[in-house]
């Protein structure tokens, strides 16, 4: 039987072809760094349960310039995650009707981003109040 040379459209690097796909992949890629941060915190909790010396070793690791630089990068990734999460929220949640009209997607996104900024600032302030 003859070997048929049927054309198969190459899919390598498909997501680099369109800015929309590029944004999609950037959004999906944030999950890798969310996991990385969760593992850093998990290491901290394990060290905490092992005693003061172990916990201080973990904190010393966090104070290294490499770690601070990585966390600055993580901060940017989480900020992008916040933006993209509320950007797609109008499509993932049930429609909200206010005064007989459907709430605009941009309103939902803006409310979500405002809530995230308020919560993050509240967290930073709370840490200061609890620690002082």
């Amino acid at each position, binding site marked *: 039987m003859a070997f048929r040379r049927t054309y198969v459209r190459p*899919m*390598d690097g498909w*997501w680099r072809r369109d800015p929309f796909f590029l944004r999609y*992949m950037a959004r*999906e*890629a944030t*999950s*890798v760094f*969310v*996991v990385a*941060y*969760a*593992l*850093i*915190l*998990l290491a*901290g*909790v*394990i060290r*905490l*349960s092992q005693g*003061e010396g172990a*916990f*201080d070793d973990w*904190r010393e690791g*966090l*104070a290294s310039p490499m*770690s*601070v630089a*990585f*966390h*600055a990068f*993580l*901060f940017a990734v*989480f*900020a992008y*995650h*916040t933006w993209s*999460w*509320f950007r797609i929220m109008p499509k*993932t949640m049930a429609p909200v009707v206010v005064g007989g009209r459907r709430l605009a997607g941009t309103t939902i996104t803006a409310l*979500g981003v405002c*809530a*995230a900024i308020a*919560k*993050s*600032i*509240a*967290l*930073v302030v709370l*840490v*200061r109040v*609890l*620690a*002082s």
Partner: protein
Amino acid sequence: MKRSSQPVFWLLFGAGGMLSALFGAGLVFVTGIAAPLGLEPPAAMSYADVLAFSRNWAGKAFVFAVISLFLWHGAHRIYHTLHDLGIPTGLVAKLACYGTALAGTLTAAQSLLKIGF
């Protein structure tokens, strides 16, 4: 009819995504940037204060929710992105993704219980 397990994973993904969208940037700033650079009061990340926070039931619940839900969020998203990268999403991929999240959740629970109340 066989019931799909996906709604459970999707719920954990959504909860973790929302929690990280609301608190993620603030948490990274406090634990990874401000505290190591000395911008926070020295007590903020001291052993005594973090231990006291983790012994309080609300603090314990927050730490557990952040670690486990972030892991389930990431596991679900990575699992569904594998297909887009041309990696087969079989049982192996499923076990690697959700298995990591489960192992992390159990380890966090064990350590937090060891810390006590």
